[in-house]
């Protein structure tokens, strides 16, 4: 037998506990901003979307870099052209996705009559700016995590997804409230 529940728990617990600590921190930021979120539920709906997109793009990028490193067509250098291309394409995919989904969210909110005092253009701008900053940070972390784990002989495939989704969750919330604050909508 190759699996035992004890081993699964023992191997899973340390990384999960660290992840949970960071996510609780993200949750406390949400609690601190709860009043604003209740006034503008459209942003409450957006939070899982912002985080899902960055998590997926970061994981896909990490998996591509990992395969490149394993096969050998990406070298362990921050100047690698192949890596730069992958990085830029991630940002492009991110911008397209954030644009489309921001419009979808806005109209869902409009039809459920929960939108207040915010124009489509303003909402889309906030989401796209948040998304752009987030994708840049998440892609950078994805590449760095893939590089470091590969260098140390760890499989990047095991490391990138958990690191990227956790960092993305907290940074997504931080960027959203920062950009939202700069636009000054309802705050």
């Amino acid at each position: 037998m190759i699996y035992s529940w004890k081993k699964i728990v023992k191997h899973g617990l340390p990384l999960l506990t660290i992840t949970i600590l960071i996510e609780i921190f993200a949750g406390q930021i949400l609690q601190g901003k709860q009043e604003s979120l209740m006034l503008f539920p459209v942003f409450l709906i957006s939070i899982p979307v912002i985080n899902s997109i960055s998590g997926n793009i970061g994981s896909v990028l990490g998996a591509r870099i990992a395969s490149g490193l394993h096969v050998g067509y990406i070298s362990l250098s921050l100047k690698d052209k192949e890596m730069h291309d992958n990085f830029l394409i991630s940002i492009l995919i991110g911008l397209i996705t954030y644009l489309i989904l921001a419009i979808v969210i806005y109209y869902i909110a409009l039809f459920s009559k929960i939108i207040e005092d915010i124009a489509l253009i303003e909402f889309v701008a906030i989401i796209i700016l948040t998304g752009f900053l987030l994708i840049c940070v998440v892609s950078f972390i994805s590449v760095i995590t893939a590089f470091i784990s590969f260098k140390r002989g760890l499989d990047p495939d095991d490391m990138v997804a958990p690191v990227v989704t956790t960092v993305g969750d907290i940074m997504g919330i931080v960027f959203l409230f920062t950009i939202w604050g700069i636009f000054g909508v309802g705050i």
Partner: protein
Amino acid sequence: MYAKEMVKQSLPLIIFCGLGAIVTGSTLGVMQDLLREIPGLIVIVPAIIALRGNISTAFGSRLGSAYHLGVIGADNLWNEELKQNILGSFILSLFVSIIIGLLAYITSFILGIYPNPIKLISIVLIAGLISAVILNLMTIVIIYLVFKRGYDPDNITGPALATFGDIITMLSLFGSALLVEVAI
């Protein structure tokens, strides 16, 4: 050409997952009154989604590896390897759910918000276990179908579990919060 191929291959799936996340977000939007009535509830949202995501994608990818190693298959699914995996994922969910409830309570307390600790821990625990049951069952069904058709489970379980996992976790949290709010 290369860039075009990459965009064409991953964009639809990422947009699809984003649409799934809108369902998750809308559930959160519907929960507004509960979030207002139960202090600390919003704190556990990111943590419980991350918990479910981590445990179920790891569960799915271990079953994928077990398939490649030949210890599990369509005609040999319900065996000791699978049972150990299920047990492991349940015990992890149980442990970490309690940790989430405790941490949410303690950090809120430090910040000057005083949630009801029993309420909070019960909500996370019930939501964690309900979503564990549903998602484990779903993983087994997906894995069974994938095995039967001879596809590679590694390509299918990850995105499928990530998208449905968040929605099911949020619905479980909603249900559990309602239940505890009525019962306690």
